C-alpha cells in the first residue's frame, strides 16, 4: 500500500501540486537541474541565495576541506557547494540509474568532460608522476521531492506544497518542532539556532526555490546568478528532457562517469524537483546513494503500531482478569 486517499499519494509518480489541492490553473511544476559538469565552484549561488533570502552568516572558520568552508546544507546554508579532490578514480558502481556507464567503459576519462587531468612531468627522485586527478564541484540544494518527508511529517502545515510544486516553509507557522529535520533523506532542512539576532531563529529553514520570486515570474536567485548555468531553472518536465540530452551528449564525448541523480519519477522520492548531473557516485558529494522517502512505509508503521496498541490493551485487560484480591 502506498497511498492513503489518492493513488500514489505516498509513493510513485505524482503531480505534487495537484495532489496538494491546486486546481487546473496551477502553473507547471518548477525545479532545478544542476549540471555539475560545468560547475566552477564559485559559490555565487550561495551568496545570491543568502542575499535574497536574508540567510545569516553561519561561521567564520576554515574547515581545511578543499574550498568548502560552508560545510553542509542547513538552515543557514540553503545552497552548498561541495568540493571533491580525488583521483579520476575507479569505475563507479552501477547505480542502475539512467546514464550510468557499464563499468568497463569508464576508464576513459575525465578530460573531455569537465574535469581536467594533470599529467605532471615524469618525476623520479621522490616526486611521483601526478596521478590523474580531478576536482569535482557541485552546488547542492533542497531536492523539492515529489514525496517530501519533511512536508509530510510537519505537524503544523508550516511546510507546504506550493502551486509550483515546490516545498516551502511558512515562517509564520513553524513552531520549531524539528520533526522535518530527521525526516529528510538528504539532510537538507534544519532548525535555525543562531546567530543571535538573526530572523527566524528557532524555526526550520531551507531553500524555498525563491517562492516569492517565482510568484513574481522571476528566476530563483541562485540560478539567475550562476555564471555558467550549472544551475538551470525551469519546468521540471522540460528540465528532465534537457538533462537526458546532456547526459547523452557527455556519454558521446566519452565522459562515461556522467549520470543523473534524482530525475526519475519512479525513484524513492517520486523524483526530485531539483535533480543533478553528477560525475561520480552520489555519496562522493555527500548525497545518499538511493534514498527512499520514509513515508513510503508509513501505512505499515501505523498498522504495526495499531497492533501494538491492541496488544497493550489486551495485555492490560488480561492482567486484571485473574484472581481478585
Amino acid at each position, binding site marked *: 500500500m502506498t497511498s492513503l486517499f489518492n493513488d500514489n499519494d505516498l509513493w510513485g509518480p505524482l503531480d505534487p501540486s495537484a495532489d496538494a489541492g491546486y486546481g487546473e490553473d496551477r502553473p507547471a511544476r518548477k525545479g532545478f537541474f544542476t549540471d555539475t559538469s560545468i560547475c566552477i565552484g564559485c559559490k555565487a549561488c550561495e551568496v545570491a541565495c543568502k542575499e535574497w533570502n536574508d540567510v545569516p552568516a*553561519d561561521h567564520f572558520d576554515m574547515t581545511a576541506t578543499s574550498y568548502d568552508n560552508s560545510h553542509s546544507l*542547513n538552515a543557514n546554508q540553503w545552497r552548498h557547494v561541495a568540493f571533491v579532490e580525488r583521483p579520476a578514480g575507479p569505475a563507479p558502481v552501477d547505480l542502475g540509474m539512467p546514464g550510468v556507464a557499464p563499468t568497463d567503459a569508464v576508464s576513459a576519462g575525465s578530460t573531455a568532460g569537465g574535469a581536467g587531468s594533470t599529467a605532471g612531468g615524469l618525476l623520479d627522485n621522490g616526486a611521483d608522476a601526478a596521478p590523474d586527478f580531478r576536482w569535482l564541484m557541485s552546488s547542492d540544494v533542497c531536492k523539492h521531492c515529489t514525496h517530501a518527508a519533511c512536508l509530510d511529517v*510537519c505537524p*503544523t502545515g508550516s511546510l507546504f506544497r506550493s502551486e509550483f510544486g515546490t516545498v516551502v516553509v511558512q515562517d509564520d507557522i513553524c513552531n520549531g518542532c524539528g520533526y522535518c529535520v*530527521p*525526516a529528510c533523506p538528504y539532510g537538507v532542512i534544519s532548525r535555525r539556532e543562531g546567530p543571535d539576532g538573526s530572523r527566524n531563529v528557532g*524555526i526550520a529553514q531551507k531553500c524555498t526555490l525563491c517562492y516569492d520570486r517565482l510568484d513574481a515570474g522571476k528566476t530563483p536567485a541562485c540560478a539567475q546568478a550562476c555564471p555558467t548555468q550549472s544551475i538551470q531553472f525551469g519546468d521540471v518536465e522540460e528540465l528532465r528532457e534537457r538533462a537526458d540530452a546532456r547526459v547523452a551528449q557527455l556519454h558521446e564525448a566519452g565522459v562515461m562517469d556522467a549520470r543523473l541523480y534524482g530525475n526519475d519519477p519512479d525513484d524513492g522520492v517520486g523524483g526530485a524537483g531539483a535533480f543533478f548531473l553528477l560525475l561520480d557516485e552520489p555519496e562522493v558529494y555527500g548525497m545518499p546513494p538511493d534514498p527512499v522517502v520514509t513515508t513510503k512505509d508509513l501505512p505499515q508503521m501505523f498498522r*504495526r*503500531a495499531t497492533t501494538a496498541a491492541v496488544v*497493550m490493551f489486551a495485555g492490560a485487560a488480561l492482567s486484571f482478569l485473574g484472581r481478585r484480591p
Partner: protein
Amino acid sequence: MSPAEPHLEQRDTEAVPGRPGRRKGGRGGERSMVPEAEFTSYYGRPIVKPAPWEADIPAYLFAGGLAAGSSLIAAGADLTGRPALRRTGRLGALGALGVSMFALVHDLGKPSRFYNMLRTAKLTSPMSVGTWILSLYGPWAGLAAAAEGTRLLPESARRRAPVALLGRLDRPTGVLAAVFAPPVAAYTAVLLSDTATPSWHEAFRELPFVFVGSGAAAAAGLGLLAAPVHETGPVRRLAAGAAALELVMEHRMEQSMGLTAEPLHHGKVGRLMRAAKGLTAAGAVGAALGGRHRGLAAASGLALLAGSACTRFGIFEAGQASARDPKYTVVPQRERLEREGPVRYRE
C-alpha cells in the same frame, strides 16, 4: 543539535587531506552483522541530519508510555476494585502527562507557537496524529485524575455542583482514558521510525511493540512502587508480560535492522541498552517472584521504571548516532542497490 554548532564539533580533518573519506565499515568488531563494507563519504560528514531534539524527547517517550500504561492500570484497578492502585494509576498518568507536555513544549524552537500543532490534522505526520491522540487522551486522563482528587475533598465540598459532576464522571473518564492510552504508547514508535534516521527507521516493524511493552512495564513498575502489595497482583502479571514483550521484540528488532543495529551496541548507547535489558528483566523477575514482598516490589518497580527509561534514551541516542555517521546511510543503501537494484516504483 543546532545547525550552527554541529559544524564545530563535526569539523573533520581527514587522514587523507582534501579528499573525501573512504573507510572500512563495520568498525567495532564482533557484533558487526554485515560483512566489512568499504564506503565513500564527503569528508566523513553526515548525510542525514540528526533530529534537533535533546533529552526532552526521550523523557517524553518514557513519560508518555508511563502515562498510557498508568491509565490502563487505573481503569483496570477501578473496574476490579483496587482503589489504591487506581489512585496511583490516575495520579501517575496525570503526572507523567504533565511531564510529557512540558517536554514537548520545551523542545520546540518556538514554544509560543505550540498551539499551531492543532492547526491541521495530518495523517502523514505521526506528530500531528500523536497530537490529536494526546488531545483525545489527555482530557480524559486529566478528568479522571481530577475525579480522583475529589475523593480527597470533604464530603460537603464534593456535593457542590461541578465537583459532584466530576464525581459522577469518575469511571467513564477513567475508562475513556484507558481506551485512548495504548495509541499514546504506540504512536511514539512511529514518530521515531517515520524519519530518515537509519536506526529508527529500520526498527519500524518491532519498535511499536518495544515501546508499548516498555510503557506498560514502566506503569507496572510505578504500581509496584506506589500501591500496596495486596492490590498489585495484576500489575505483577502485567510487568512480567510487558517486560517479556519488550525484550523479545527488542531482540527481533536488532536482528532485522542489519547494520543499523550497530549503534545500539556502541559506547554510551550500548551501556544504556544493556542496562535497559538487565533492569527490565530483573524488574520483571522480581515482580513475578517477589512482588508480594513490599521491599522487593518497590525495588522491582524502580528497576522497571529505570529499565524503561534506559530503553527510551538508548533507542533515541542510537538513532542520533546513526544519523551522525554517514556509514549507516550509505552502506545499507549500497547493499540494497547491489542486492535489488535501485528502488523503483512498479505499478
